[in-house]
């Protein structure tokens, strides 16, 4: 028999008179039961989730079917009209999408490679490695606006560090207007993004690398595997979870580089640097809440699709795990 001092959160089965004697399916089900009060514990988190995520998302769904301007009491329901216009008759949205894909591709590929390279070189816990890790991680703790303004002055074609250095070393022919060059501007922004976040991704990779058992490398060496073979056969598959996190996180960051873009290009951004998040912001600033809400939903769906596709690709390349 249970005693009255038994804690409230103990399982039903523990209080059950038959506890210890029950067997079979019914017993297993009872053993898995929790006290109903425990269902109240997630309530605060759930409330926050509902108020700050679920409800705004539902509202966005509703607004996306209207031409609401953000302040009027009157609006018209336009059905799927906003989505149709975005996908078939909005060159600015398509331009932002193209820019965003270019930006994402460059950032995901080069930031991942760069972060992984740094992690491999700095994986050992020596004093020098620790110091260098701190230095490479440092940009991550800066505010994005500070980073944007710093790089804005680096890229300035007249007073900026980049052109000054090129002139100093005699490479005047490579000086550029950087962000003023519409063809290349988005790639210069990508370089800033990589500088900003590579250190953060390096830390994730280092954690992944340090979890690989050293014995695997020892066995591989005995079997005569070279460094490259060790990397492709052991390291790469074993750091699959870290890579998945890095790639997914980098992708989402690439789509949300909003403050960096606005800091570098001013508001509104030029077409050459306009990405989806800044385009949506312009929509809201332009008093097109319904339309911007529809853009936001497409934006959400697009990120989800890209991240899912990436996970599939990574699973395929790291299937040996």
């Amino acid at each position, binding site marked *: 028999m*249970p005693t*009255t001092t*038994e804690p409230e959160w103990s399982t039903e089965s523990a*209080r059950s008179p038959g506890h210890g004697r029950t067997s079979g399916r019914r017993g297993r089900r009872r053993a898995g039961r929790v006290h*109903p*009060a425990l*269902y*109240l514990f997630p309530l605060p988190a759930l409330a926050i989730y*509902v108020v700050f995520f*679920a*409800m*705004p998302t*539902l*509202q966005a769904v*509703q*607004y996306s079917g*209207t031409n*609401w*301007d*953000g*302040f*009027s*009491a*009157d*609006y018209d329901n336009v059905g799927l009209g906003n989505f149709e*216009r975005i996908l078939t*008759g*909005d*060159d*600015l949205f398509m331009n932002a999408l193209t820019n965003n894909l270019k930006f994402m591709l460059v950032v995901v590929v080069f930031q991942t490679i760069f972060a992984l390279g740094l992690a491999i070189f700095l994986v050992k816990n020596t004093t020098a490695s620790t110091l260098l890790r701190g230095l490479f991680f440092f940009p991550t703790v800066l505010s994005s606006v500070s980073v944007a303004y710093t790089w*804005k*002055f680096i*890229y*300035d*074609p*007249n*007073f*900026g560090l980049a052109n000054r250095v090129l002139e100093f070393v005699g490479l005047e022919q490579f000086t*550029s*207007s*950087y*962000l*003023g*060059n519409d063809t290349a501007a988005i790639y210069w922004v990508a370089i800033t993004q990589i500088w900003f976040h590579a250190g953060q991704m390096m830390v994730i990779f280092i954690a992944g690398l340090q979890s690989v058992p050293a014995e695997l490398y020892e066995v591989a060496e005995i079997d005569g595997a070279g460094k490259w073979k060790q990397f492709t056969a052991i390291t790469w598959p074993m750091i699959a979870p870290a890579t998945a996190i890095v790639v997914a996180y980098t992708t989402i960051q690439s789509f949300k580089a909003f403050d960096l873009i*606005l800091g570098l*290009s*001013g*508001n*509104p*951004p*030029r*077409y050459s640097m306009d990405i989806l998040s800044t385009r949506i*912001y*312009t929509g*809201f*600033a*332009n*008093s097109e*809440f*319904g339309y911007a809400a529809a853009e936001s939903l497409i934006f959400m769906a697009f990120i989800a699709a890209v991240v899912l596709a990436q996970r599939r690709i990574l699973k395929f390349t790291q299937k040996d795990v």
Partner: protein
Amino acid sequence: MNQKSHGTMYTRRRILQMFAASGLVAVPAACAGPGSGGGGDQGGGGGEALPTDGPVEGEISFAHWRAEDQAVLEKMFARFSEEYPDASVSQDISPSNDYQSNALQRIRSGNVGDLFVAFRGAQFVDMVDAGLYADLSGTDVVERYDPALIDVGQSDGTQYGLPYQLVFNQPVSNLDILESVGVTEPPPDWDSFLAMCEDVVAAGLVPMAWPGGEIGNAGHLFNCMVMNNAPSDDMCAKIESGEYACTDDWFLTTLAQYAELRPYFQPNATGTAVEPAQQLFAQGDAALLVTGSFHITAVRELGAQFPVGMAPPVTVSADERKYVGIRNATFILGVNTASDNQAGALELLRFLSETEAASTYANGTVQHLTVADVTYDNEDLAATSDWLSKETLLAPRFQFTDLDIRNAAEQACIDVVGGDSPEQAAEKAQGIIDQRIGS
């Protein structure tokens, strides 16, 4: 006993039922009709009469975007509090870009901005439509302003707001450089403007420091470039309505003139932000800063010692000229209809509109004002005060109420400076505008 207490506790089924019920409540709450929240008086203009007298007490929130004016305003508001000991003023300042994007929603809540401001153009129109501005028509405060300068604060004949600042969105000049090349008066026509630029180049200097990397600041030049070229003064409104197009002759002429200016901008002008352009001008390497009078303070803070004037490009011959420059009346003050302290806000507006307070603000922030009889003691204000009486056009770029259309037209000018042909840039811009008009 436990069995008994168990009966009073929530079962899992009941808790899940509660979650489901909460969800059912949340869904319709989330789907409440757009526009069903917030304050303001929907549907244009103020509704209830503005209390013209009442107790001036409590904290009065003043929402604006001029962080650079904060210290001057603090001193002025201290004087206000001496006059009204039960009242204090807090400044709610946002960066201008944020203010442009978010102010309407924030002020509409009534929590900030008992007294607030708006940019001329789209923001003022939206704020009037949202019913944020109380009707100031017939109040004594309106009489303190120059009547010729406050019509931008009207809508359908009602005076909702009072534009406070009078700025000149035209190139600021280094008078020492211009004098050294023999220019003592603003060039009266296009040929003389180009000749002036040529002389500055010959002197080894940059004629025009232009922030072509920032569309918002780059666009100030657009005002001067179209003021005499366009067939009518409401050219930007007509581009937006579809009556005019960027592919029209007058716009192509304007773009061709931008192309003529290419050699006179600093190198890589389309990648230059506003701060480096100011620096170039402040250190005496450029003859003109191609933004506006509102950047004179920044240039002085960068150490510029030379006398300044203004030299806008007149794009036609002297006999075809209608305007010699551009002005803009902005910082449109208004009393918030959603405010609980309208009496205090109106009294603060009265205070700002007094000649003495306005003179303090003007000289402290180096800006001309629309308030009548202001005394301009500041050297730069005094030197540029002759522009107050010249034939200037109210900045046309703020006729655009659609930011994407405005950006398309102004981006075409940047593209031409960057190397595109006028026809190519015009086609591209008009393509975007056609989509916007058709939407």
